[in-house]
């Protein structure tokens, strides 16, 4: 065994020699927890191996370019593990002295990791949409760069109200996350005065999601499934598990547009988006990775840029200081969405416009015109300060 105190002495000696010459290093990581999932309905949606990591690499590159002028260097370690290895992976990152960690995981897993991480670590949620994590189950050491379910459902319902498509047929899946999303749509409808005229549940019976004759079955089943619904203007699909929603457009009994998990989808990012300088951002990403940018990539990029921006402005890189500055009124971030992004100081959620896409173009961006708020129109999306049950942010 090596003598630990000797090691420490060597370490400090090295630091003393190195520090006047070397840039201060900001160490970050992206931890992605991969559950085993079946193939997506569309093969175009199959996740690339570097999902999220590629966005973080670009964010880190951006930070390093800026750091060259401020005397800061940035590193990002990317790691994908199975759920049962998640806690060990977090411990290992902490042991390496990495305290700024973007996490792409499901809600329960993120909650477990945040409870394990302790206050000396700051997690940036670049995946989970769960409302509870921003509400009663919020954690002081988690900032959410990923939008919540209610931000997404509010974005869709605002657009539907702008279109005067206020009568909604809500079709939700049978998985727990589908039910949470359906609940979010119910709340959004009540918030903005839309009416859910009927609800139907599409039960996942475990059949194959893709078969050679899949489209034949779909063409017969979906019209029957949507037959004889109450009069509605639009179908809203709540299918976070990805079981059925892409089958709805063109197959509904009544000729109605589809929104939600298929048709017009609310997203944090889409590779077709071009407004507000996004074209150059997409191009930088594509040059670096050779593929289109996904939501997880954008969110991981956001996580890195939040860290970079705080370090550049405040000169501090420890997790406690980064959290404090990010939540302060001084923090703002340009992120190709046409306005500055800031954090809600009462639950750590990043305010952001939501893109509405049909998969080819940006159809619209919410918040919609006319939805006003005393603080920021962005606060018309998601739970607002007066409603929050989050206690961990001193609220």
């Amino acid at each position, binding site marked *: 065994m090596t003598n630990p105190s000797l090691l420490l002495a060597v370490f400090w000696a090295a630091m003393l020699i190195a520090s006047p010459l070397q840039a201060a290093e900001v160490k970050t990581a992206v931890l992605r927890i991969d559950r085993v999932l079946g193939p997506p309905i569309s093969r175009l949606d199959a996740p690339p191996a570097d999902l999220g990591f590629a966005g973080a690499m670009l964010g880190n590159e951006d930070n390093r370019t*800026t750091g*060259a*002028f401020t005397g800061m260097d940035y590193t990002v370690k990317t790691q994908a593990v199975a759920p049962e290895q998640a806690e060990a992976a977090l411990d290992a990152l902490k042991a390496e002295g990495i305290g700024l960690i973007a996490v792409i995981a499901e809600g329960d897993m993120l909650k477990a990791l945040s409870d394990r991480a302790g206050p000396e670590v700051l997690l940036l949620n670049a995946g989970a949409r769960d409302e509870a994590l921003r509400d009663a189950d919020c954690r002081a050491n988690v900032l959410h760069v990923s939008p919540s379910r209610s931000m997404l459902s509010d974005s869709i319902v605002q657009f539907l109200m702008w279109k005067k498509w206020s009568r909604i047929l809500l079709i939700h899946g049978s998985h727990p996350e589908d039910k949470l999303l359906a609940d979010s749509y119910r709340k959004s409808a009540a918030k903005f005065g839309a009416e859910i005229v009927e609800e139907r549940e599409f039960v996942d019976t475990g059949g194959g999601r893709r078969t050679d004759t899949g489209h034949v079955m779909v063409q017969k089943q979906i019209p029957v499934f949507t037959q004889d619904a109450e009069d509605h203007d639009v179908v809203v699909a709540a299918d976070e598990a990805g079981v059925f929603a892409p089958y709805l457009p063109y197959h509904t009994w009544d000729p109605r547009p589809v929104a939600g998990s298929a048709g017009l989808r609310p997203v944090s990012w889409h590779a077709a988006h071009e407004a507000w300088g996004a074209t*150059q951002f997409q191009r930088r990403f594509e040059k670096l990775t050779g593929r289109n940018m996904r939501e997880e990539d954008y969110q991981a990029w956001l996580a890195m840029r939040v860290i970079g921006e705080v370090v550049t402005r405040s000169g501090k890189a420890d997790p406690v200081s980064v959290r404090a500055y990010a939540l302060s009124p001084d923090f703002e*971030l*340009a992120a190709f969405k*046409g*306005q*500055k992004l800031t954090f809600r100081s009462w639950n750590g959620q990043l305010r952001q416009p939501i893109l509405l896409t049909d998969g080819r173009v940006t159809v619209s961006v919410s918040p919609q015109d006319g939805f006003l708020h005393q603080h920021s129109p962005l606060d018309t999306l998601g739970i607002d300060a007066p409603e929050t049950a989050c206690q961990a942010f001193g609220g």
Partner: protein
Amino acid sequence: MLRSALAFLPAVLMFVGPALANKVFVSNERGNSVTVLDSQSWEVIATFPAGNRPRGITISPDGKELYVCASDDDTVRVFDPETYEELHTLPSGPDPELFALDPSGNPLYIANEDDNLVTVVDVKTRQVLAEVPVGVEPEGVAVSPDAKTVINTSETTNMAHFIDTSSYKIVHNVLVDQRPRYAEFTADGKKLYVSSEIGGTVSVIDLSAAEPKITKKITFAVPGVLPEWLQPVGVKATKDGSRVFVALGPANRVAVIDGKTDEVLDYLLVGQRVWQMAFTPDEEFLITTNGNSNDVSIIDVKAEEVIRSVQVGEQPWGVVVAPN
């Protein structure tokens, strides 16, 4: 086109007065063209193709060469401002967006948005003299009146980089608010204005000391307009330093600022998504490009009033006026 040009000719010949008619060149980002206006009649006198995604546009001090950043062609196209023929291209580096000419007419300093570089090009030999690494997404470029310093703003790094033109080295970096778009020196070289589109501010940087220093951040407020849409982009200062005009993007306004106090005096309603601006040489008029309404607004500088708007090509981006 020919007929309107002929109809316009006698009007010029008959005109007697101090102001000369100048050609106004507007780059149309989505129209892939340049629209030419006459600064007296404000009629469109020509439109010519300018390559893919023309954005930044400027003209040589002698008025003999018109430079256009053809962003998607990764080149700067050089046109004859009389015949509208393309003379040649300049090696610009990838995705040139904005540029600035040395006051002498050479060299040209080009911001390469995708590659985090400022490329310095000799417009006579058409050679790249230097590539200066800058922050992420370089955009605005300005040359100091004494030609000793080039400013480049980097939109994602959020800095104004001060580049020494004798060494092509960065000598200062000034952190400004989010997404800096444009830099403008006062004619005396003592002040620099840097607009921050997403930050919603214009930083006033004092250059009289050894180190540049932000002395003020100009903010904007228009009743009935959401603060989020007050996004400063183009900035132009009059030669006497008395007025500074700031284009406020999707707020569809140009702010009029007192150049002495740097206080906002007024807001002028122009077309939609106002982007860049240019004075006529006598500073009688200021022309603004309005990207979403596909027109330009003409501001009477003394009266501080918009006198008319003129339809141009699709998504007008940049504007320059030929010298006298």
